[in-house]
Each structure stands twice: as structure tokens, then as C-alpha cells.
């Protein structure tokens, strides 16, 4: 499969050449496939949208700490000026705590926003005058195309960011 092979190569480049990263690309390619599949399913009517729930996306985003050996040294970037080091530690701690949240909320908010627009336009369709019905249908079709693109982009963004965060921690 060309898409998955391309993704595998890209994640391999992002993760680097460390021996410990062998096989880890499959995890992130699977994550991408899962989110892509769920995002596409929700475009069909009356299908339950899993990725629009924070519980699901937070579960996918939370396990960011795989290797606990370098937790403390990753809090201070190399070459930080001495007076700034304590403040950088606090800022990096807050950044690490917030990261799973931002990852989960980004996916949820994008999926919910698109779904909401589609639902609102669809529910108000019968109220439109006949002359404006054509515009509503065209708008709905364009929104559907946009949401298909968002489904792919958001799953890609999620997987890439998880890869980058995983590389930073390990």
C-alpha cells in the first residue's frame, strides 16, 4: 500500500535512526489509520462519531511517556542560560502536561465543528425557499468535500505530532 509505505518512510525519518525506534513507525501508522477510518465513517449519516468525543481522543493522546530514563534531563534544553534554567523547568513541565490535552482537543474540536456545520445546514434544508435550495445543496456538497479533507489532515497531524512528541521524550 503506497500511502502506508510513504507514511512509514516519513515517520522513520522523523523518529531518526536509533535502534530503539525500530518498529515504532508501525504504531504511528496504525494510529493514523485508526483516526482516518473513524473520521471518514462519521461522514456517513447516522453513524456514531467516535473521534468527536474527548474521552476517545484523550485516550489516544495521553500515553506520551514511554521512556522514564530521560524525563528530568529533557526538561532543560541544552545550552540554556543559567539564570533561566529554573523558569524553563517550570515552563517545560506545564508544556508536557498540556500537550496531551491540546492534541486531543485539536482533533475533537475540528471534527465537532465540521459535523456541526453539516448537521445545521442539513436540518435547516426543508426551511429554505425553493429558489435557495440549490445553493444549500451545493454548500452541503462543498462542506462534505472540506470535511473529507479535514478527516485526512487531522489524522495526519495527530499522528505526526505524536511521533514528534515521542521522539522528544525518548
Amino acid at each position: 500500500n503506497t500511502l502506508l509505505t510513504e507514511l512509514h518512510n516519513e515517520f522513520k525519518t522523523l523518529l531518526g535512526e536509533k535502534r530503539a525506534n525500530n518498529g515504532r513507525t508501525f504504531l504511528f501508522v496504525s494510529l493514523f489509520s485508526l483516526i482516518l477510518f473513524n473520521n471518514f465513517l462519521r461522514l456517513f449519516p447516522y453513524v456514531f462519531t467516535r473521534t468527536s468525543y474527548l474521552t476517545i481522543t484523550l485516550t489516544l493522546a495521553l500515553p506520551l511517556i514511554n521512556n522514564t530514563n530521560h524525563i528530568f534531563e529533557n526538561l532543560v534544553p541544552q545550552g540554556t542560560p543559567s539564570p533561566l534554567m529554573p523558569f524553563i523547568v517550570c515552563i517545560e513541565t506545564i508544556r508536557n502536561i498540556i500537550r496531551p490535552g491540546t492534541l486531543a482537543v485539536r482533533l475533537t474540536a475540528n471534527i465537532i465543528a465540521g459535523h456541526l456545520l453539516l448537521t445545521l445546514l442539513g436540518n435547516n434544508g426543508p426551511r429554505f425557499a425553493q429558489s435557495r435550495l440549490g445553493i444549500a445543496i451545493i454548500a452541503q456538497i462543498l462542506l462534505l468535500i472540506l470535511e473529507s479533507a479535514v478527516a485526512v489532515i487531522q489524522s495526519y497531524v495527530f499522528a505526526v505530532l505524536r511521533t514528534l512528541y515521542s521522539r522528544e521524550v525518548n
Partner: protein
Amino acid sequence: MAGDSHVDESQFKGISKYFNSTTSTGRANVAKATYATIGLLVLFFSLKPKKKPTTN
């Protein structure tokens, strides 16, 4: 994270031998010391006896 295999540790003297932003142990020690300081401050302010208002 970038390793410190090419860093010459003999260049550090005194306290900067243990607390610096170049070696991995130095960076880890800075983070641990910061957490310990914050923990001690929190402990100090939570255990500090509160001043009772004097009534005349």
C-alpha cells in the same frame, strides 16, 4: 534528545560540575533541584502557622 557524548566534563568546576545545561546529569540535577525547591516552598507555606487576629 541530543546526547552529551562529545562534551568534555573536566571543563566544569565547582557547582557547575553538578548543575549545568550541557551534560545530561547537569540538566537532570537542575530539574530535580527546581522541583525540590518548589516542593519545599509549598510545604513551608502550607505548614506555616496562620496569624490569629487579636481581639481587644
